[in-house]
């Protein structure tokens, strides 16, 4: 008899432990309070309340060491996955790279020639060289998931010179910009996020537009100044309008949409590993970075990091023109 009771008890303890025979551990009072707190937090998040932002940053900083530690065993798994994916289309990729290499050799000669001409003309009119952009390289420690945002968390923060508003790039192009910077972590809003709005120029004609993120993989190109001169495959660059981004950062290529034009980013948001944060100074940054006391404290640290970074290398690697 006891044996039977224990068997039943073990198989369905959730039903049988409580006095009512159904819901042990079900405390409606506490549940109501927690649900209320959740809804209140959700509401405050929607309003982008400063306390919620602070709380999020503090919690993220607490969890950052755990995420960094968890990345260590993940790395071999990711590499193996990438190798399998790469080996599947290795031959077609090789053919494509050969053709691209041939094409780029022609462009290399033209670029050297153009550079020489610009230098000569610059000397003639006495142009003072713009200083290059300093940068720091950071690792992505976590990706966003779920219906709300497209962002990534970096394992570096204000202690390393990060600041809200700084553009973030990788080898392929613009990734996004920092929107929240804590002491040791920073959150990057990706170009695909629904809140992302970037003034851009398209193609050789330099058609002005605004890149509108919509949480999809290919953001929309809106507010086009001219539609006739845009072609599928045209390169999309930052225009520098508004001062948040330097002019000339490559972002992606135009694709046709049934209703208009969209852009496929060169930087694949799902394959972010290491990214470079550009220490781009502009008056608009004062508006983007609202944490003034912390900023002034870390100003010296940022400058020292910036000095250590290889100035100008990012600009030349990523095709940045003078801001």
């Amino acid at each position, binding site marked *: 008899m006891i*044996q039977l009771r*224990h*068997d039943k*008890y*073990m198989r*369905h*303890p*959730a*039903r049988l*432990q409580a006095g009512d025979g*159904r*819901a*042990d*551990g*079900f405390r409606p009072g*506490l*549940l109501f309070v*927690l*649900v209320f*707190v*959740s*809804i*209140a*937090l*959700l509401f*405050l998040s929607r309003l982008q309340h400063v306390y*919620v932002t602070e*709380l*999020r940053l503090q*919690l*993220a900083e607490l*969890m950052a060491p*755990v*995420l960094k530690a*968890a*990345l260590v065993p*993940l790395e071999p798994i*990711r590499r193996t*996955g990438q190798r399998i994916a790469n080996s599947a289309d290795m031959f077609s990729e090789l053919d494509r790279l050969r053709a691209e290499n041939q094409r780029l050799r022609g462009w290399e000669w033209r670029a050297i020639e153009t550079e020489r001409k610009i230098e000569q003309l610059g000397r003639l009119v006495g142009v003072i060289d713009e200083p290059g952009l300093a940068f720091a390289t950071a690792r*992505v*420690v*976590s*990706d*966003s*998931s*779920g*219906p*709300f*945002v*497209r*962002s*990534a968390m970096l394992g570096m923060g204000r202690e390393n010179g990060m600041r809200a508003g700084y553009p973030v790039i990788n080898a392929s192009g613009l990734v996004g910009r920092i929107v929240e910077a804590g002491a040791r972590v920073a959150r990057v809003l990706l170009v*695909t996020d629904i809140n992302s709005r970037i003034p851009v120029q398209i193609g050789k004609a330099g058609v002005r537009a605004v890149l509108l993120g919509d*949480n999809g*993989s290919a953001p929309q190109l809106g507010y086009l100044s001219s539609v006739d001169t845009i072609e599928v495959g045209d390169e999309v660059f930052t225009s520098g309008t508004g001062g948040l981004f330097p002019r000339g950062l490559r972002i992606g290529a135009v694709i046709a949409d049934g209703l208009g034009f969209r852009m496929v980013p060169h930087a694949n*948001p*799902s*394959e*972010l*590993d290491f990214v470079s944060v550009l220490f781009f100074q502009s008056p608009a940054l004062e508006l983007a970075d609202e944490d003034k006391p912390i900023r002034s404290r870390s100003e010296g640290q940022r400058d020292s990091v910036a000095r250590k970074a290889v100035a100008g290398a990012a600009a030349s690697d990523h095709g940045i023109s003078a801001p």
Partner: protein
Amino acid sequence: MMRGPNRLVPGISVAVLTVVAALPWGLPSESRFFLPLLPFTAIHIWTLRCPRQMPEWLVFLAGLATDVLSHGPLGFWSLVLLLGRSLVLILPPPQDWGGAGRWFHFCATLLALALTQWVVASAYFMSWFEWSPLARSVFAASLAYPLIELLLRPFSRSWSRTLNPSLSRGA
């Protein structure tokens, strides 16, 4: 009632799955929707096994951590996971259902949670949210459930022995 270190197993398993869900796996954004549901698989398993070791506040904290790590608005996953736990407690699977029954129950709960996510996300954005990524996340999470249950089974067995030592002695 779990004793000693076993008492920590449910909380630790939920915490580990929360961290796993946040790591950059290289998946496209639309395919990452199922990752925050991974902690819920452990919550489902442990709420059925030992509800007292999976209290509301622990589920709330797991949700809050998921919110922070998934970069979503605070409170969203806390709300969804609390609802999930309540559903498991109020409408548990019938006693004579085995492992397949638990899996079926999990899938049904997931559907309810996906519907909640869709409603909350639509209200948050003030426009109808696209449902297809959520549907795919339900499918992916339902496939992950048997695997996670298999991984947690050794801990679950040790819990059973703690619960009823006489059975483990063969009494």
